[in-house]
């Protein structure tokens, strides 16, 4: 599904060169639920941006679902993002002047789906996240949890192969976080690959596989064998260190 090899990325910060990613090699299989952990500055956001084709690495190769992601024009990158990847952000990133329905339908606008069809589909996805009755509300009229569920519906509407989430529960309370995580589990159970970046251990612990980054290097990559939905007491039980 995802094949990263030798990915490096550095930024110029004033006088210093910051190596956000150093020679990252990473394979993610279809249907995996991966958490990427790390303190701030560890390079986890950069990795996510590379995975999401929002950022291009300095060196290395990236293959997504059999497609080599390199030397893409900005227009092609936009098309790949639209087709293959769904994004969920910490700050939801809904467009504030659009209703929940229009926000969810927006990716289909860029696929040139007719308004009627995309609204129908958007309603279906809103129903799926339990917000059908909020379809006409603007983001400002939604709670944080509702906003994130709208954002997830938007990420899912194009039926992407890969769902990328950047601290999706970072701005939410515990019980709302749980609802959101349940949604992730649900789509993962249906076969979608989920990669989520978090610094919260209990969120990371719910993933099937946990990768820890530090200073741009992968320092740990563990896969647990426990059932993905039943995580309660086994989180400190790493198995199958690769």
């Amino acid at each position: 599904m995802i094949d990263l090899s030798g990915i490096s990325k550095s930024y110029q910060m004033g006088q210093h060169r910051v190596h956000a990613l150093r020679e990252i090699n990473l394979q993610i299989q279809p249907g995996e639920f991966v958490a990427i952990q790390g303190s701030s500055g560890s390079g986890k956001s950069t990795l996510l941006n590379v995975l999401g084709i929002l950022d291009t690495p300095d060196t290395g190769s990236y293959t997504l679902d059999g497609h080599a992601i390199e030397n893409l024009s900005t227009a092609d990158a936009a098309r790949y993002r639209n087709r293959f990847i769904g994004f969920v952000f910490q700050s939801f990133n809904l467009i504030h002047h659009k209703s929940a329905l229009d926000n969810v339908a927006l990716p289909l606008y860029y696929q040139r789906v007719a308004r009627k069809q995309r609204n129908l589909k958007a309603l279906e996805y809103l129903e799926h996240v339990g917000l059908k009755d909020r379809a006409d509300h603007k983001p400002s009229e939604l709670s944080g949890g509702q906003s994130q569920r709208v954002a997830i519906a938007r990420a899912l509407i194009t039926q992407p192969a890969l769902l990328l989430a950047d601290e999706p529960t970072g701005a939410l309370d515990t019980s709302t976080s749980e609802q959101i995580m349940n949604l992730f589990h649900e789509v993962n159970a249906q076969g979608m690959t989920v990669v989520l970046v978090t610094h919260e251990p209990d969120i990371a612990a719910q993933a099937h596989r946990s990768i820890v980054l530090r200073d741009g290097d992968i320092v740990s990559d563990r896969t647990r064998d426990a059932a993905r939905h039943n995580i309660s007491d086994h989180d400190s039980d790493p198995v199958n260190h690769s």
Partner: protein
Amino acid sequence: MIDRELWGEVWQVLKANRLRTLLTASGIFWGVFILIVMLGFGNGIQSGVNKSMAGYATNALYMWGRATTRPWQGLPPGRELRLTNEDTAALQSRVAGIDTLAPRLRLARFRGRSDVVHGSKVTDAEISGDTPAYQNVLPMTFRHGRFINQLDIKQKRKVAVIGERIHRDLFGDDVNPVGQQIQIRQISFTVIGVFQPRRYGSNRERMESLVITPLSTFQQVFSYGEEIGFYAMIPDTGLRSESVAAEMRQVLMQRHRVDPTDYRAFGDWNSETEFLRIERLFVGIRAFIWTVGLATLLAGVLGVSNIMMIAIRERRREFGIRKSIGATPRSVLTMILAETTTLVGVSGLLGLFAGLLALFVVDFLTRPITKSVDADVLFDTPTIDLKIALAAIVALGVASLLATLIPARHAMKIDPVEALRAE
């Protein structure tokens, strides 16, 4: 490229920022509105002035003798100068560039009146002696009969052409007076025509009260001998009446032995100078209107560009989101340009319609005054060249698009990572 879906997006954005949209639109609206109204008024005033000057030869020059103010060749100053038939002949043979030379005589002083009698009826009229050439100076039509001809002059016939009021007062409107007799200072004239100037303008009462007789008859019966009162002259086309007048003056000065520097010896009045002055005034007014109008439009364009720049900065995040979910840079650019086009197009057209409506209302309210027969207002139906108006709007649209292109290209290049990181 621009389809219904795109308009849907544009409409949503414009609606979401109602105040910003309204402010930008009102800038454009006023620019176009003011330009249209000012152009309309400019045209209205110009056609009003043209209308009031229609019917006059716009380049006619009048010249008359006054008195010398300087001694010359042993002659004292203060000598009265009287023009004569010989002057007429000399001017016609020696001055090139004269199209029409109409020697004229009046029975009384300037604008003075004399009694005209028909049977038991009496009225007052300005009596003049004229030649057929006068018709070129004052274009006229005839309700009855004809104007004075060469035969009348040659045979010194006692005939008269009368104005409409004289006709009405002495004969009544529905009577054909041709062949009837009128008396001026107890001398009988036969009426040969009733004339009507092509346009009355502000002199209606005077024009209606004219009685025109052949110059030769006039000189004889009223004892003027060879004397001429003044000349009305029209230069050949392409010539300035003033330059022809200078030559006339030279000939007359020589003939009457006047110091060539004694400019006050012969008086003249020149409608061409007036006409040119008015023309120049209009060039000025037009330049003013365009300057103000275009400056207003330019302010509108700058407003659009400015507001789009702010709007784009404010919407960085939105563009970042759009790009992260699949908007191509091109589609971002297209959307922004479509927003500008919509804003400018709609408000520009609204301004155009409002301007036309305002002109229509003005025309409707002033119609009773400007359209009456003896209207002497320097204003007529304000008109607009729609092609010019539309061209102004198209130019406005293009200018706005160019002005928006810079911030729009910036938006196109927004890095979603950067845009979404901030908060």
